[in-house]
Each structure stands twice: as structure tokens, then as C-alpha cells.
């Protein structure tokens, strides 16, 4: 054990610097620090779990929110093509604040004549298709099976303008329209609800107690932001007006319709078609060239999507703020427990220093512990968030899509929190005086 070879009784001198240990000597390895940290965390599992809970909830919220946001964005994008591109929707009433016009005259409803005017190439040369539509809700029954559905009264152009296709049977034609025939075309899903055997065509259903013959079934399109057409029923416009819902304009007494769908020739002609529609309707509604606002509105899909995107963004922002607060609280929780832990383990820290642990070794150990807490919490939160996303998709309540970027963000944020809130407790541990620490009770 006697490891001195020098035989001289040399006193302190420059030569003795040779024996000075280098501070660059490698100390404890990172792997050992990690092992020690994990052992410490596993020794008190409940406390570890509770400490990480804030980060778990925060990360789960972030992952789920990003997934739901992403999912609804995809849904919006799909609904553009599903509902037909270059679609303009004309509705009665202006879109001013509260939906009221400031002019003295009552708002004029849209009529089938308005639709005919818009379909005239002399009035709206940039329109490709025009589809007058009226809507009402009804109770639909087939024997014992019943459900409620939106009934759309439409013409033959409906199918093409909304990018719909027939699964079985035929669609409404001129003959049905002229005769106000009691026929119905079922959306894909309502057809399976009422006729689980898939034999709807040719059968009779009752809507609000009246009998209609099913002549066709539409292909399913899947859900959209605007309620699914798969759950709806389409009938000839004249049939709906005659048998189910006859709204009349208050001033003229003419039968009114809810909206007119107009397909522009292409995307480049959306603006010109909108202008032509407005000019035509203002003339028909006897509004002066200037001075009075429109008594109708023309929306394109993009406006609608913008509105939806905007409201979704606002919601995501609020929920994101809640998630951020949760992460902050989670980080403070980690810091709190780490400070308690440093105090509880003061003697252990003193011992580690006494047997050769350097400040940076102690710092690393506690920092790794905080990081392991937050990263572990982040991974658990990721699991919960992904489960929520999967649950949303499976239940069909909402569409959610988890992207690698959101996973990286969530885990990255969790790690950053551990680092940020772990540094102060770790610094305190590292700077403990070993003599004081060993004496601590």
C-alpha cells in the first residue's frame, strides 16, 4: 500500500506539482449518472409518477391538440373537393352584422326564377352549373326503423355540382321535377340505416308520414365540416315544396328556396361569376346600382374554409395556452420535488463529494434526474395524446392525425422543461459544501 518511491524528505516545492492530479481526468461516466438517476426515481415510483403528472398531462394535451388540429385541416382540404370545386353559394339576406340589412325594404327570398336567371348564360356567362336547393328536416321511417334527416329539394344538376355519384338506381330527372313525383334518393349512410340489407331501391319510405319511393342511393363521401351528405335525402325540388315544406316570400307570396349553388367555369372565374351573380340578382330584386346593400350573399368555399380555419385556429390557440400552462406547472412541480430531493439527500451528496464526486458530477446527476423525469413524463404524455387521437378517429367524433413533427415537438418541449426547471436544484446540489452536507441531519 505504500506507494511512495521518493526517498527524499522534500518539502513543498515546485517539483511537487508533478504529482498534481489533473482536473481533466475522466470522472463518472454519463451512463453511470443515468443509472443512478433511474435507480433513484424507481425507488419511489408513486412520487416519481405524481411529479411527472403535470408534464404527462401537458404533453398529452399538446399532442392531442396538434393531432386534432391537423386532422380538421385535412378534413377541410378534403371537403373542398368533396363538395365540388369552384362552388359559389347564394343565400337570401345580407351577411352584414347580425344578418340584417339597413335598407327599409324587407329582405327578398330567393326563388326558382332567380335560379333560372342565374342559369341563363346571357346573365352569368361564367357559371357552368346552377342548382336551386331548398332544405327541411324530416322524420324518415322504413317500417320500424326511423331516423331524422335533412331533406334537400333539388334538381338534376345537384349530383354533378356537389361531386356526388350514384351507388345504385337513378337520380332525379326532369320528369320527376315536372310531376313533383314522390321519389327520394338516399345518402349512403342513411340508406344502410334504413335498409341494412342494401336493397333500398324500389322500396317505399315515409317522411313526416308521407310515402316516397326510393329511386337511388348515393355513394358515400365521408364526413365533412358541414355535416355529412351521407345522412341526407335528396328529392325533387317541386316535391319538397309541394309535400313537405312550402316557404313563401313574405312580400310576393312566391315559393322560396334556401340557396342556389353555382359552379363557376373554373377557379379563375370565381370572382367574375360572383360579380355577374350579384348584378343579375340586384336587377331582379330591383336594387339600385349603388346606395343599397345586397339582400343576398354569395359565398365561395374558400370564404367558408377561411372562417372555419380561423375559428379552429383561435380554439387551438386557447387550448394550446392551457397546455402551455399545464407544462409550466408541470415544470414547477419537477423543480419543487427536485429541491426537496436535494434537501433530503444532502448527506448523500456530501458523501458523494467526499469520495471524489466533483461539482459537475453532482450537477450532471441531478440534471439527468430532472431530465429523466420530464422526458419520461413526455413519453407517457405522448402515449396518452396518441391514444386520444386514435380514440377520436375510432369513435368517429373527430379526425386526428399525429405527425412526426408534433411528436418531436412534444418530447423536445418536455426535455427542455426538465433542463430548464432542473438546473437550479442541480446547481444547489452541486454547490453544497461537503463538510456541511455530511453533518446535515
Amino acid at each position, binding site marked *: 500500500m505504500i506507494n*511512495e518511491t521518493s526517498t527524499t524528505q522534500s518539502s513543498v516545492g515546485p517539483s*511537487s*506539482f508533478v504529482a498534481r492530479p489533473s482536473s481533466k481526468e475522466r470522472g463518472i461516466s454519463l451512463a453511470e449518472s443515468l443509472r443512478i438517476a433511474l435507480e433513484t426515481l424507481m425507488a419511489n415510483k408513486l412520487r416519481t409518477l405524481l411529479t411527472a403528472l403535470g408534464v404527462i398531462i401537458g404533453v398529452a394535451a399538446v399532442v392531442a391538440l396538434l393531432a386534432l388540429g391537423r386532422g380538421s385541416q385535412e378534413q377541410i382540404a378534403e371537403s373542398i373537393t368533396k363538395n365540388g370545386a369552384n362552388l359559389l353559394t347564394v343565400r337570401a339576406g345580407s351577411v352584414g352584422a347580425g344578418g340584417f340589412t339597413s335598407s327599409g325594404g324587407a329582405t327578398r327570398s330567393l326563388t326558382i326564377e332567380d335560379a333560372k336567371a342565374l342559369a341563363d348564360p346571357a346573365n352569368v356567362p361564367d357559371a357552368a352549373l346552377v342548382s336551386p336547393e331548398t332544405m327541411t328536416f324530416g322524420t324518415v321511417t322504413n317500417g320500424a326503423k326511423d331516423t331524422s334527416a335533412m331533406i334537400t329539394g333539388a334538381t338534376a344538376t345537384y349530383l354533378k355540382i356537389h361531386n356526388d355519384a350514384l351507388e345504385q338506381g337513378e337520380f332525379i330527372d326532369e320528369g320527376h321535377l315536372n310531376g313533383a313525383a314522390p321519389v327520394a334518393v338516399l345518402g349512403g349512410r342513411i340508406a344502410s340505416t334504413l335498409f341494412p340489407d342494401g336493397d333500398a331501391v324500389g322500396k317505399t319510405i315515409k317522411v313526416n308520414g308521407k310515402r316516397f319511393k326510393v329511386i337511388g342511393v348515393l355513394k358515400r363521401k365521408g364526413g365533412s365540416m358541414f355535416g355529412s351528405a351521407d345522412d341526407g335525402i335528396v328529392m325533387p325540388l317541386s316535391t319538397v315544396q309541394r309535400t313537405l315544406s312550402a316557404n313563401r316570400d313574405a312580400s310576393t307570396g312566391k315559393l322560396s328556396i334556401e340557396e342556389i349553388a353555382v359552379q363557376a367555369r373554373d377557379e379563375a372565374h370565381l370572382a367574375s361569376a360572383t360579380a355577374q351573380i350579384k348584378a343579375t340578382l340586384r336587377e331582379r330584386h330591383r336594387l339600385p346600382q349603388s346606395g343599397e346593400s345586397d339582400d343576398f350573399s354569395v359565398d365561395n368555399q374558400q370564404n367558408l374554409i377561411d372562417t372555419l380555419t380561423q375559428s379552429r385556429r383561435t380554439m387551438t390557440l386557447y387550448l394550446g395556452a392551457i397546455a402551455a400552462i399545464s407544462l409550466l406547472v408541470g415544470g414547477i412541480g419537477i423543480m419543487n420535488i427536485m429541491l426537496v430531493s436535494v434537501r433530503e439527500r444532502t448527506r448523500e451528496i456530501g458523501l458523494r463529494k467526499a469520495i471524489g464526486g466533483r461539482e459537475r458530477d453532482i450537477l450532471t446527476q441531478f440534471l439527468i434526474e430532472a431530465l429523466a423525469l420530464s422526458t419520461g413524463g413526455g413519453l407517457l404524455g405522448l402515449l396518452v395524446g396518441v391514444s386520444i387521437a386514435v380514440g377520436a378517429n375510432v369513435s368517429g367524433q373527430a379526425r386526428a392525425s399525429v405527425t412526426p413533427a408534433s411528436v418531436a415537438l412534444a418530447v423536445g418541449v418536455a426535455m427542455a422543461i426538465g433542463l430548464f426547471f432542473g438546473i437550479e436544484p442541480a446547481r444547489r446540489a452541486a454547490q453544497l459544501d461537503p463538510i456541511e452536507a*455530511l453533518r446535515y441531519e
Partner: protein
Amino acid sequence: MQPIIQARDLARTYQMGDLAVEALRGVSFDIQPGEFVAIMGPSGSGKTTLMNLMGCLETPSAGQYTLDGLPVERLDKDELAAARNRKIGFVFQQFNLLPRSTALANVELPLIYGGERNRAARREQAARALEAVGLADRMEHRPRELSGGQQQRVAIARALVNQPALLLADEPTGNLDSHSSAEIIALFGQLNAQGITIILVTHEADVARAAHRVLTIRDGLLASDQRPTEDQRPEDQRRRRAF
């Protein structure tokens, strides 16, 4: 032969607010390799401060302290940590074992901080240290499964594992019954017989009698430096065993 410890006018002053407390006021002595030295003194005499200085836990306010050729007063924090790791084995009154770790893992600890990356080599070395203190059959036991005397043996094995120049024991029998105390003192005697330099801080005269040399500190100064003659000691040891 170069001394293990060279203390020259070693002083340590603590600043307590406006008051400067001189815990150590200039102490000089040498300790040669292989010595077994007891440091005695009443509480408040400065012996704990001397112990902390010798253990490289702090640096002197004045004077020189050379440990195994190392000018300790000139070392920075990291170098002090390295010196504690390589040159000194600590044995404490409270044992200071990690409660959740096995005896083997506790003894391994200085090797981990020493940078030994090979786990098998570490365990091998730790096992040998435990064998040296007679705990070959208790390696996988945790501290609470061991008696006080056995816990202190684990602590001694931990102090020895890095083959330090110096074993520094602070009241090592303070928490033990008389039987365990006698065992631990006997173990120190055996280790010293193998050539290990031991410094033992105690206020128990019985314990101090096991040493070959007794330094007494009083009021921050070295009050006496006695070497009991060879024939006195075995007698004392016989008497102590009679307890």
C-alpha cells in the same frame, strides 16, 4: 522517505459575520507512511477542522499542507475532489452508506467517481475490499440488513477500495457498542500492520491507545505529540479486549 502528510503552520479562520473565528492557529507536523496516528482533543479544539483540512474537504487560510506530494492549498475544487478520490479513504461516525445500495455497490462508488468504466473490474475490486474487511459473505446485503459493526466495515472497505495513501477515520466507533468498537479498532490495527497509513480522530482515550502516536489539539494549536512505547501498547490492547 517522503512523508504522507506535511503540515506547516496550518491555520484556518472562519468568518462568522464580523467575527473571525480562528479554529486552527498554526499547526505543524509530519506523518510518515505506515503510521497509525490518533488525533485527540476536546470539542471546539480544532481537531475537526484539522480533519477536514487533511481530508481535502477544505483548504487552509494560511500555511502549507502537502498530501502525498500534493500541495493541497494550491488545488482547485476539481483537483481537491480528485485528491479525495485517489489519496484519501474516509470513514465516518455515521457510516454514510447509501441505504438502497448493496454493500458491493456502496464500495464500488469511489471507483465510479474515479472513472473506472469497466463494471466487472469495479465489482472485482470492490469484492476484494469487502473480503479484506471480512464481509465476503455479505456483499449483496443492504445496509439495513447489516449490524452497525458490519456497516462500518462496509464503509472501511469503501475507503480502501481505491488504495488511498491515507485512511482518515472521524470518530469511527462513536455509533457502535463496545464489542463492535473493539472489532473495528482491531481491524484498523490489522490494516495498519499491512502498511496502510491511518489517522483516527477521536475523543475516546481507549480508542486512541490503539494508535502508535497521539496528536493532541487544544485551542487550535498542537498541544502534544506523544509516541507511547512499544511495550505499552499491547498491554493496553489486552486491557481493552477485556471489556
